[in-house]
């Protein structure tokens, strides 16, 4: 009598196993349950079905005839309601079936994020043919779709819907697409390619709710963004479908736990596919599932066999996006990177090497060598001999190392090196022979590489060839990650529309994966100053003071300085400050040079509560820690002073209320004096106003720190409104053009005060445009950071993760 084998689930893994068993005429009487009313089809090909490139018929792997010819009893469209392991019976909706051996292949279920509106019609997961058909039915050309989840599945869904004429937006929780397979640089290139095809991508987007009365209409994000959506596809991830196994009291962790023979905790019950967990690992790609199918078929036929997971590679199945990732590409202490970037052609390759072995590869734009690299990873080939040329692929191996200078040496004298300024190799050689032996001198004489800067490397190679290798290294780069100077990077950010950190690092050819402590704060400022609406401030790229919105002291405590507009306060504010000082045991209360009160020695974990108390009394952050607007120091002016010519206090308050919250390349301090006696010491500030009878003398670029410098007169204007306009324009010009960490005086020394005057004084249109851009930026940044971080949900990060002192005592 033949043994009875029952299989639950007709997916790709169990389908392959049944092929192996029936090909070998294994002596089993087989019953196959499937909840879907059909047999096995190639789920990987659902995206071409969605996009219309294939039909369901094209992707069926096992039709009714196949099951019949193999003698398999099919119970399709029937849910299994329970497994009785003791009596060895599977209960289906239409009756029970006894088994000798049972295989659970229930696959995985899509993870639905628990937001309001997820049950509305029009919200679909993307997992099986029914989902795909529902999406096709909903895909009206011109209608809007939102795909939640920017992983492999979500992007395939997005591309398919877009090919059906829908307007598609992808919302992804993480900072870049496909973060499990790609690093940020490759993720950025992928995003650019998708955007070029008309798919909108919103990274760092957390879905808050799906809106709609009777049907999905829109998706609301935590940051308040709303995207219209006639169709919402949830593709945030999958989890193993383990409900039947749990109910049957089989051992289940994240998936159904199996041993190397795919046996569960019950010796007669086996499991395979996406529902299993093998040595703490889950499986989602098809290659290891096919291996499992082979092992389980052998096990069921009594042959010795053991499952060993192998490395897998990923390729994205979206036409036009050439993408490859294999192995482990995380950085590691003993690992080294080889990075190749070609910004012009949108190519990015990164190889991760450990010892003499290649362990990971990420490629974008040119993946022709992907399978070769994958082979090196799988076979653990010793690559020490070809390391220097490894990244160029198999075509460059075996011929000795390539001399990178050879290509440049072979260029004819009329070859154009700098495209921006039309400088050819011959002119560079002539200039170098004429004495231009540094990059700066060469730029001054020929302008080669002086514009966009992308040819700097090439220019330096020509110089090195001409000088015989002795190029005086001009340290122009903003840090060790790039040879580009701050100004070059700023220009490229604007010219190329680079709106994220990975975008800058890719398009400017950064040599490190995620920058360094020097360039990251600078890039963060440049991006938020140039793209206030598009770029989101990156806290992790901020110095500690700006990350914690307080000034760190030598012992790791912080100082807290609430804003006092124009140096004016009230008894109520002073009382609130006194209360906070006592409540939080502030060791020192000090009056600052900027006319406000400093509470020194506050513990980090007390900051949010203290801020909340000060907020309750109507006070906001004084940004005493920021590369941004600090104080506006004033004297009492015409309101009280017998010499005062104008309302200097009022103007100071007005300026501070206008400018506060704005981030600048370095700190910005203002002073407004009511008469030339200058009690507010306005003439050593970044911007100083001295009121006179006839109006307002606006002067800029003073300093009273390491350097002491008197301000220089920018302009004298008759009205307060004009003074405010010209000051705002000056600060915006500084924000848009200065190097990070250059005070205003340093910047005006570089660009010349005449140029500044030409922009903000002589050209009224330019002045108004600068003010308009400042106002736009302030619509985002003029807000109190204390209020945000004092919110109950935002406080956690200010306290320790865990206190282990109790456990240590045990």
């Amino acid at each position, binding site marked *: 009598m033949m043994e009875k084998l029952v299989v639950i689930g007709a997916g790709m893994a169990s389908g392959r196993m049944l092929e192996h068993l029936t090909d070998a005429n294994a002596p089993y009487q087989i019953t196959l349950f499937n909840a879907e009313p059909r047999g096995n089809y190639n789920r990987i090909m659902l995206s071409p079905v969605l996009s219309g490139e294939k039909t369901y018929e094209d992707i069926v792997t096992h039709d009714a005839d196949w099951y019949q010819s193999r003698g398999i009893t099919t119970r399709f469209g029937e849910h299994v309601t329970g497994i009785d392991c003791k009596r060895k019976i599977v209960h289906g909706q239409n009756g029970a079936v006894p088994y000798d051996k049972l295989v659970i292949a229930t696959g995985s279920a899509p993870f639905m994020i628990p937001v309001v509106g997820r049950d509305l019609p029009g919200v679909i997961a993307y997992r099986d043919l029914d989902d795909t058909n529902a999406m096709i039915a909903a895909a009206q050309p011109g209608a809007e779709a939102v795909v939640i989840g920017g992983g492999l599945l979500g992007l395939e869904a997005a591309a398919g819907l877009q090919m059906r004429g829908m307007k598609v937006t992808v919302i992804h929780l993480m*900072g870049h697409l496909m973060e499990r397979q790609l*690093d*940020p640089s490759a993720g950025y290139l992928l995003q650019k390619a998708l955007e070029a095809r008309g798919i909108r991508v919103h990274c760092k987007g957390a879905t808050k709710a799906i809106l709609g009365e009777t049907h999905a209409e829109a998706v609301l994000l935590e940051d308040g963004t709303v995207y219209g959506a006639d169709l919402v596809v949830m593709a945030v991830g999958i989890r193993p479908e383990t409900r039947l196994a749990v109910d049957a009291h089989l051992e289940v962790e*994240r998936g159904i736990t199996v041993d190397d023979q795919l046996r569960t905790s019950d010796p007669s019950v086996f499991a395979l596919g996406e529902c299993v967990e093998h040595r*703490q690992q889950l499986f989602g790609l098809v290659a290891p599932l096919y291996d499992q199918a082979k092992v389980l078929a052998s096990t069921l036929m009594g042959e010795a066999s053991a499952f060993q997971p192998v490395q897998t590679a990923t390729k994205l199945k979206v036409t036009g996006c050439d993408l490859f990732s294999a192995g482990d*590409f*995380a*950085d*590691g*202490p003993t690992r080294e990177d080889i990075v190749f970037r070609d910004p012009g052609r949108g190519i990015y390759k990164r190889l991760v090497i450990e010892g003499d072995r290649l362990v990971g590869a990420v490629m974008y734009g040119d993946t022709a060598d992907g399978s070769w690299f994958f082979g090196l990873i799988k076979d653990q080939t010793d690559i020490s001999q070809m390391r220097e040329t490894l990244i160029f692929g198999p075509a460059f191996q075996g011929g000795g190392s390539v001399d990178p200078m050879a290509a440049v040496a072979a260029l004819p004298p009329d070859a154009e090196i700098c495209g921006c300024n039309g400088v050819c190799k011959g002119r560079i050689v002539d200039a170098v022979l004429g004495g231009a032996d540094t990059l700066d001198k060469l730029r001054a004489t020929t302008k080669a590489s002086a514009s966009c800067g992308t040819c700097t490397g090439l220019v330096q190679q020509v110089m090195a060839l001409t000088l015989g290798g002795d190029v005086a290294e001009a340290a122009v780069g903003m840090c060790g990650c790039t040879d580009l100077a701050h100004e070059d990077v700023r220009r490229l950010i604007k010219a190329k529309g680079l709106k994220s950190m990975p975008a800058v690092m890719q398009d400017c050819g950064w040599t*490190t*994966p*995620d*920058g*360094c*402590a020097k360039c*990251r*704060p600078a890039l963060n400022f440049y991006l938020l100053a140039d793209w206030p609406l598009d770029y989101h401030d990156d*806290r*992790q*790229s*901020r*110095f*500690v003071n700006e*990350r*914690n919105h307080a000034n*760190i002291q*030598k*012992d*790791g405590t912080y100082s807290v300085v609430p804003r006092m507009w124009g140096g004016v306060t009230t008894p109520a504010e002073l009382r609130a400050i006194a209360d906070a000082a006592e409540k939080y045991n502030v060791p020192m209360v000090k009056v600052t040079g900027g006319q406000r009160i400093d509470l020194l020695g506050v513990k980090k974990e007390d900051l949010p509560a203290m801020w909340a108390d000060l907020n309750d009394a109507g006070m906001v952050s004084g940004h005493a820690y920021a590369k941004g607007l600090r104080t506006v120091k004033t004297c009492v002016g015409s309101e009280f002073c017998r010499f005062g010519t104008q309302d200097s206090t009022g103007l100071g308050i007005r300026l501070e209320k206008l400018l506060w919250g704005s981030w600048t390349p370095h700190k910005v301090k203002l002073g407004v004096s009511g008469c030339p006696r200058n009690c507010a010491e306005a003439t050593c500030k970044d911007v100083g106003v001295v009121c006179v009878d006839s109006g307002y003398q606006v002067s800029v670029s003073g300093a009273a720190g390491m350097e002491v410098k008197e301000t220089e007169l920018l302009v004298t204007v008759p009205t307060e409104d004009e003074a405010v306009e010209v000051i705002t324009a000056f600060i915006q010009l500084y924000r848009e053009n200065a190097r990070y960490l250059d005070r205003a005086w340093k910047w005006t020394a570089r660009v010349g005060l005449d140029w500044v005057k030409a922009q903000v004084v002589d050209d009224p249109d330019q002045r108004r445009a600068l003010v308009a851009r400042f106002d736009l930026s302030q619509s985002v940044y003029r807000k109190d950071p204390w209020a945000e971080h004092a919110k109950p949900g935002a406080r*956690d*990060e200010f306290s*320790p*993760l*865990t*206190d*282990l*002192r109790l*456990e*240590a*005592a045990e």
Partner: protein
Amino acid sequence: MMAQATEWLDIAALSDIPQQGARLLRTGAGCVAIFRTHDDRVFALDDRCPHKGGPLSEGIVAGHTITCPLHNWVFDLNSGQAQGADEGAVRSYAARVEGGRVLVSTEMLTRRSAA
């Protein structure tokens, strides 16, 4: 070398620590900083710069380095060694991520006796 196997302590979810950021653990012998790098690896180091005692957890995390917020000393997160011209080291502890959880070696609980 001790042959004893490392014992692990589950302290938090990976998502509790910001990417390119750090959080603190209080222990009987001072604070330990748990860092999470851009590629989602975690590292545990004493939260005290050997130079002037700066809290390393408040520095900028880039690649596998941490820059002290007080005077910009840079340390390798894996070895705890100061980089560049500076000399010194911070004690580091074994830490790893498993199934979205952060595990640290229990060694740090008993380190007072070892130190």
